């Protein structure tokens, strides 16, 4: 009984000592940025004049509302990734937003004020084509969804189906568009490519086919691309081969009426496919009779239908983007045009003007200047929020979408209200780089460098540097005093390029982030402010990135240098981008051209004479090239070639192979491990982090003997999954291979398990997580490797000389949630105990002490295990919300967690990225090397003062007493 109580006590104590956040630490050293992804559909909430909301549906399957004043997310709904959560269409009606999701599988209606769901309806299967709102007598009551073979009408109030009708001849006709012009008729337009247009008119009340006809149109292949609805049920199409506009009245449906563009004195740019932009402000009413015709990439024409006649209202050249907007009864056209015609349009300001849509006249005082970011992309889309001013004139704000996924919200005359870098919703890889020393710090460091000077000059130098320090300190004090008077909000964001410098404990770093869109960011880790950005154009859509720090900031005056390897996944062709990670500037070092596909890249630990680490690239001919490739480097490479090994993984053929470098920079295969691809496939290969330090070589056991760790820096953890996914036969395998010799150290198979497998490989342990199909739960398994009670060669580790097979211990646990990603904490010297940081689908980031994942946890607690601080084995690991490092700041769709050591041994910097970005510090063994931030200075000083006074008083009393005694 006593033992049990003791055990319980111990458990409580252990649980109590692990890290948690205190409430007053909220926002002190952590920050979160929420993103929504690249915008696909955008609607300004217009049902109320004073609304401050913009609704966005994005390519990341996110539906969100932003505050138009600040650009912050009001609410956000994150759906499944992939095609099942894909948003196909977005229709807005009053305060309801109707979304078609998952290739027409779901119809959802959202209440946009509170961000809750009104209803969700499941539609019949079939590939989605188009959707539109159906209005009748000025009110919108239904929504029509067009599928490949059927059309259905649903009530907007509850999502119930009103009717569904099959489309006639759907095997030959490709139905593409559904349209309603405000009366109860619903038109479905289809096309038989290069033959005719099929038009079916349904009655909106009961789905009865009112009319069905076909019109010859041999030039037409796609209706959404070349046609638009204007005016009263009028279909207008443009064709580039015949250089004509075609109109068709859907009511009469006689034949296409051809209007040659030449008759309007217009000309289409050669090799340009002209397109149309029309506008239907209210789905219950007919579309506007005005529309834009794009004739060239920078040429638009505003046209109008006036009593069956086409009139050119205005010619816009050059014009980059156009858009319509309606407020009240007024409709305006916004046109963005480059401001200066002579310079290339990508690198300068452009102006946006409003034009009256009915007359084409320019509205006075509506010019808005949009200055393009030279490090950003070209504008792609213009979203205009028009509103009526008090004097009944039209005012407006615009949201400009650019190619680099940036949203810029502007108001007149060009004031940027906010910008959002939506590229950051898709961070692929990142690195943290130390900030440079300031001039004074560098001077101090430099003082210790050279010792050739005489005594006097050294004394003088010492004094002068101390003086500089004093000066800096006084300036700092003055700044503190000055800032104290300012409101807090102003003080916060004054970090800029100029005052970037390393802090005392190296807690502030530069986060270099690489996003899928090809935009690079430099983010200050203290505030989360973006300090630089650089948009790389012409990045293939399926590119893989690898970011490497070649030179850190430690080698003043050489600038730090990062190298980004961009590789096209299909062709294997790669390119290098070399830049300064602190300022984001392109380096003057020109990277080598890489004509051959690249298989593998590796950073060598040695540096060239400019302190840049050497990057080796292996191409598909197994030839090695070095970057930088100076004479010195090549010479060094020749000397070291015999000790450079690398491995290649071919997951398609299930082959792992090891190579050795020859002195002539060719390679030689030394080992190969083949895994049969019929039964299993390689899903991931994990080595150890090169910047990881292990402090203790072994573990002290309960009987004071030492169990030495097997610390092989070349160890690879290879995870395989079975190709057979039947739950009885599926398995997950893990193989530990020495990367130099190809020797298989250990192999473990988890039967009745399947992926996704998440692995962390560090020190002498591998932790992996898988789904157990047998028990339908997530399980963690930990493998630890030990050399035994004595070390074979304690001075240096060599893969080639290790005759003994390590002892392998393994234990598994139940985890009550699935996980998104997993990483281990990392500290400067590796003294601090390790935690696992686990990203959960709920958005929490759990900090789980590695202590709980220890294969030496005994089933029954013994005296010795208690001595060793081992927790008795329990099958289930707990998720305690106190262990969430990000408390309620959830991170959606965590893709990766990056950990970096700081200057303090106790502190590890953590960045979680996914749809959101979250940065914080964690203290796995609490803050043992600095005073805690709740350190009670008041108590200590008051106790000291009290003691001081007590001694004074008692001294006085003692003196009085002595005097009295002497008198006696």
């Amino acid at each position, binding site marked *: 009984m006593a033992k049990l109580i003791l055990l319980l006590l111990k458990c409580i104590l252990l649980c109590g000592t692990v890290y*948690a*956040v*205190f*409430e*007053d630490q909220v926002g002190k050293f952590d920050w979160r940025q929420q993103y929504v992804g690249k915008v696909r559909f955008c609607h300004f909430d217009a049902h109320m004049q004073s609304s401050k909301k913009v609704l966005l549906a994005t390519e990341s399957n996110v539906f969100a509302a932003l505050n138009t004043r600040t650009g912050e997310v009001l*609410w956000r*709904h*994150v*759906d*499944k*990734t992939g095609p099942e*959560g894909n948003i196909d269409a977005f229709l807005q009606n009053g305060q309801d937003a109707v979304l078609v999701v998952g290739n027409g*599988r*779901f119809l*959802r209606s959202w*209440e946009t004020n*509170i*961000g*809750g*769901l*009104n*209803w*969700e309806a*499941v539609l019949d299967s079939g590939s989605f084509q188009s959707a539109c709102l159906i209005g009748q007598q000025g009110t919108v009551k239904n929504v029509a969804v067009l599928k490949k073979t059927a059309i259905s009408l649903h009530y907007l109030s509850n999502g119930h189906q009103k009717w569904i009708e099959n489309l006639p001849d759907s095997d030959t006709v490709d139905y593409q568009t559904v349209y309603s012009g405000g009366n109860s008729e619903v038109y479905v337009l289809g096309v038989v490519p290069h033959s005719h247009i099929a038009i079916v008119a349904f009655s909106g009340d009961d789905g009865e086919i009112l009319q069905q006809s076909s019109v010859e149109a041999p030039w037409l292949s796609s209706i959404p691309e070349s046609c638009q609805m204007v005016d009263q049920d009028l279909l207008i199409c443009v064709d580039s081969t015949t250089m004509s506009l075609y109109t068709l009245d859907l009511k009469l449906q006689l034949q296409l009426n051809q209007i040659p563009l030449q008759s309007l004195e217009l000309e289409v740019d050669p090799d340009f496919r002209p397109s149309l932009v029309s506008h239907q402000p209210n789905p219950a009413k007919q579309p506007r009779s005005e529309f834009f015709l794009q004739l060239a990439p920078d040429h638009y024409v505003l046209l109008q239908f006036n009593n069956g006649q086409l009139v050119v209202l205005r010619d816009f050249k050059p014009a980059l983007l156009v858009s319509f907007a309606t407020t009240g009864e007024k409709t305006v056209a916004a046109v963005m045009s480059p401001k200066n015609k002579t310079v290339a349009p990508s690198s300068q300001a452009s102006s946006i003007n409003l034009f009256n849509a009915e007359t084409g006249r320019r509205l006075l005082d509506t010019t808005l200047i949009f200055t393009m970011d030279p490090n950003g992309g070209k504008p792609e889309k213009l979203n205009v929020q028009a509103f009526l001013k008090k004097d009944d004139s039209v005012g407006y704000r615009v949201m400009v979408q650019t190619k680099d996924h940036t949203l810029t919200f502007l108001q007149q005359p060009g004031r940027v209200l906010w910008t959002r870098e939506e590229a950051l919703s898709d961070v692929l890889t990142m690195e943290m780089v130390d900030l440079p020393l300031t001039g004074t710090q560098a001077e101090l460091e430099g003082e210790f460098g050279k010792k050739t000077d005489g005594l006097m000059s050294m004394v003088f130098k010492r004094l002068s540097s101390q003086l500089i320090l004093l000066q800096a300190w006084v300036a700092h004090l003055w700044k503190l005093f000055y800032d104290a008077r300012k409101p807090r909000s102003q003080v916060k964001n004054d970090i800029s390029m100029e005052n970037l410098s390393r802090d005392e404990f190296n807690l502030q770093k530069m986060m270099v982030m690489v996003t899928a869109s090809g935009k690079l960011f430099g983010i200050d880790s203290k505030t989360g402010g973006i300090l630089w950005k650089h948009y790389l154009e012409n990045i293939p859509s399926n590119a893989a990135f690898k970011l490497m720090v070649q030179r850190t900031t430690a080698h003043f005056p050489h600038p730090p240098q990062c190298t980004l390897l961009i590789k096209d996944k299909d062709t294997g062709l790669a390119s290098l981008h070399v830049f300064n990670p602190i300022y984001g500037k392109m380096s003057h070092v020109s990277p080598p051209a890489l004509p051959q596909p690249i298989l593998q890249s590796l950073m060598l630990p040695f540096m060239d004479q400019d302190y840049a680490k050497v990057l080796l690239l292996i191409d598909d001919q197994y030839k090695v090239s070095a970057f930088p490739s100076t004479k010195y480097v090549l010479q060094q490479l020749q000397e070291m070639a015999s000790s450079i090994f690398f491995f290649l993984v071919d997951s398609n053929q299930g082959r792992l192979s090891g190579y050795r470098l020859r002195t002539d920079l060719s390679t030689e295969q030394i080992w190969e491990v083949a895994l049969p691809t019929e039964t299993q496939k390689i899903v991931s290969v994990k080595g150890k982090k090169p910047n990881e330090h292990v402090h203790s070589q072994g573990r002290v056991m309960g009987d004071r003997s030492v169990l030495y760790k097997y610390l092989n820096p070349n160890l690879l953890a290879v995870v395989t999954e079975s190709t057979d996914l*039947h*739950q*009885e036969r599926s398995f997950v395998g893990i193989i530990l291979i020495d990367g130099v010799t190809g020797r298989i150290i250990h192999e473990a198979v988890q039967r009745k398990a399947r992926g996704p497998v998440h692995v962390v490989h560090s020190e002498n342990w591998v932790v992996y997580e898988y789904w157990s*199909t*047998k*028990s*339908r*739960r997530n399980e963690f398994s930990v493998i630890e490797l030990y050399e035994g009670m004595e070390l074979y060669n304690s001075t240096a580790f060599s893969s080639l000389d290790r005759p003994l097979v390590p002892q392998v211990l393994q234990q598994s646990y*139940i985890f*009550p*949630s*699935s*996980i*998104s990603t997993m990483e281990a904490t990392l500290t400067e010297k590796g003294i601090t105990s390790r935690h696992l940081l686990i990203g959960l*689908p*709920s*958005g929490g980031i759990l900090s789980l002490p590695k202590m709980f994942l220890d294969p030496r946890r005994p089933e029954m607690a013994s005296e010795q295990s208690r001595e060793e601080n081992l927790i008795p084995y329990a*099958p*289930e690991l707990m998720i305690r*919300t*106190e262990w*969430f490092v990000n*408390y*309620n*700041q*959830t991170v959606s769709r965590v893709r990766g967690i990056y950990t970096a050591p700081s200057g303090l041994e106790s502190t590890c910097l953590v960045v979680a990225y996914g749809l959101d970005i979250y940065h914080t510090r964690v203290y796995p063994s609490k803050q043992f090397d600095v005073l805690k931030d*709740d350190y*009670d200075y008041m*108590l200590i000083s008051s106790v000291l003062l009290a003691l001081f006074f007590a001694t004074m008083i008692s001294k006085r*009393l003692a003196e*009085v*007493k002595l005097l*009295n*005694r002497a008198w*006696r």
Partner: protein
Amino acid sequence: MSFVEKMSLSWLIVLAAIVAVRGFTDSDPGPGAAAATPLGGDRFKIEGRAIVPGVKAQDWVSTARVLVDGEDYVGFLRTDGGFSVNDVPSGSYVVEVVTPSYRFEPVRVDITSKGKMRARMVNYIKTSEVIRQPYPLQIRSSGPHSYFMKRETWGWTDFLMNPMVMMMVLPLLIIVLLPKVVNTNDPEMRKEMEQSMNMLNPNPELPDVSELMTKLFSGSKGSSKASSSKGTRPAVKRR
């Protein structure tokens, strides 16, 4: 004749019972579960309602999601707190309502290949254990999440209740108060005390700490009061 009829009727009942039992066999862990069925099979709907007592659903549904087996299937909450996750094939799932503000217990939902549903408690260790829960799901929040540790605050009571402080303060009180309670002027009493002291103190040579303390304190009192009897005692010893 009637007997045979009865027999067949009872058979029917037994058969029906077997069918009812069969309906749930594939929800148990082990062979024959629905994961093996092809994806083209029937899809079902998990329905339920999440309730936070005392809080209107409108105030929290915008941050909430319903996750089925991690992020395999996702549902959203309606403005009244109700939810439905559509397009779920038959099988056994853990349904969870997640929101950063409130805590909800997960529920395991079993769906047979015919679309029969049942809800039960999640038990990862004994996976076949069935503790039924209502279906359609009624998930009631057990309160807000507790993310933060409490700071160790410093108060006077903590200080006073500290065992070390208690150990210091109590003897002090005894030392100060005892001389007042016990009349030390009585010579008999004093003799008795000295005797007992000697008994306790085996080595009279060593200076006794407690005695010193009493002397010091009574001495200081004596000096301030200038009482003759108290003041004389140490003076006598000095001589």
